[in-house]
């Protein structure tokens, strides 16, 4: 019986396997990981007929060159990356039928940062602690793709989506993030908080799957006492001692020792996943529902 697999001719700049991540293990210091732009990842899976939470590839700016050994469907979503099939332009955002031996190249994104590449059957690398996701902070899960890798595929379970076009909002060119203040916003003066929510920040090149690191007006604390380490959520905006805020993304450590001034709304995290260095960031306070 043919083992379904795909050759990785070129890995791309940083391509990893991602699914929904490791849930329920944060109390053991295991980061969540998983696809940073979850809606784009799920759409890619639906387009090729996979269960929504099948493992897929997440690219960073420049994608891989793949050569499937079996006939399969492939779909690319998320960042706008050019797709070439045997050197000819192929479609983005809808299922592509690839014959064995065809070369599918996902190029450099022109808008957004991370594309998701789903292949029918899903990626069947061995799971670690219940997930196939690569965790770049702890080193759990498969290593990032390397040139020459051979990726196993699962069995196709459903038909690809029979559509000509899947409408999807384009990756944003600037971030407008809704935030809920707290839990440690009382570590900052009202004037500091007002300035924070009125300022424009910029995503720096030091950003990655662990955090978006922002440049802009630093936040000054009221006092310099140490905060005992406390658990943090994805989307938390932490303010380290230099005052430059950072937004935790999926590979963030489970506890942190600096105050979290606010948390980005879960629905705005996909936009964070697509933010290239240089993207401007504005923050909009949503009132906390509590007293």
């Amino acid at each position, binding site marked *: 019986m043919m083992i379904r697999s795909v050759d990785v001719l070129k890995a791309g700049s940083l391509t990893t396997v991602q699914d929904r991540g490791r*849930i*329920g293990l*944060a*109390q*053991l*210091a*295991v980061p969540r990981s998983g696809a940073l732009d979850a809606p784009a990842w799920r759409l890619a899976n639906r387009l090729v007929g996979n269960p929504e939470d099948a493992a897929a590839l997440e690219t960073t700016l420049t994608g891989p060159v793949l050569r499937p050994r079996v006939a399969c469907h492939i779909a690319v979503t998320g960042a706008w990356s050019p797709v070439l099939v045997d050197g000819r332009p192929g479609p983005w955002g809808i299922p592509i039928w690839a014959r064995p031996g065809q070369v599918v190249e996902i190029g450099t994104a022109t808008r957004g940062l991370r594309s998701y590449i789903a292949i029918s059957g899903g990626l069947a690398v061995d799971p*670690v*602690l219940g997930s196939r996701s690569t965790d770049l902070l*702890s080193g*759990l899960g498969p290593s990032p793709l390397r040139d020459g890798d051979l990726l196993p595929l699962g069995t196709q379970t459903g038909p690809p989506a029979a559509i000509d076009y899947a409408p999807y909002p384009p990756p944003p060119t600037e971030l407008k993030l809704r935030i*809920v203040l*707290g*839990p440690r916003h009382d570590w900052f003066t009202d004037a500091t908080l007002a300035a924070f929510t009125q300022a424009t920040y910029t995503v720096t090149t030091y950003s990655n799957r662990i955090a978006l690191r922002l440049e802009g007006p630093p936040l000054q604390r009221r006092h310099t006492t140490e905060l*005992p*380490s*406390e*658990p*943090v*959520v994805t*989307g*938390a905006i932490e303010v380290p001692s230099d005052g430059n805020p950072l937004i935790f993304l999926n590979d963030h*450590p*489970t*506890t942190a020792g600096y105050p*979290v001034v606010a*948390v*980005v*709304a*879960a629905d705005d995290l996909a936009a964070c996943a697509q933010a290239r260095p240089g993207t401007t960031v504005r923050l909009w306070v*949503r009132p*906390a*529902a*509590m007293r």
Partner: protein
Amino acid sequence: MTSASTADVVKILPVGDRALLLELDGPAEVHALHVEIERRRRDGRLPAVEEVIPAARTILIDGLADPMRFAREVTDWQVPPAEVDDRGLVEVPTIYDGADLEQVARHWHMTTREVIATHASVEHRVAFCGFAPGFAYITGLPPECTVPRRANPRTAVPAGSVALAGEFTGIYPRPSPGGWQLIGRAEVSLWDPNRDPATLLSPGTRVRFVELGS
């Protein structure tokens, strides 16, 4: 001992739109509330949650569909003091030859031999995990036996290093930079993702450090 009403001892802070941070006075209170949460979870009396994460003075509950409603429910809980866990005891064979032993002895106003005797005679307990998979913040030393972190962290601390910071003992699962005070080294497999359970030390595990050689 009487149960404490949660409203008297817990400060509840909203975290984003799906989580709550419960803040308590100290590790004993965190432990008692964590045990109560896990008991209710096992009994099916807790709303669906994705994560329950204890830390030094807080517990985070993440993945709540209705955090406000849960916050109101929690304030009515009666939380009994935690009984002694029978989660088993892990013995950690330790060679007490760490580079910062004398520093610790100065802070504790003891000789290094007395530091070792104190550390090895106490029954410790894992308060919480953080920093990296396999890293446990282990509590149990007498309250006067604390140390600050090193003013200059080391760039490379070997795996297996037993170290102190604040009120906690930690054992480094992998080589890494570190600012904790080194008191010894242990040969234990703290973390193996292919083992069940993957982590040797999880919140509530009791720990004894057993001195090797003298």
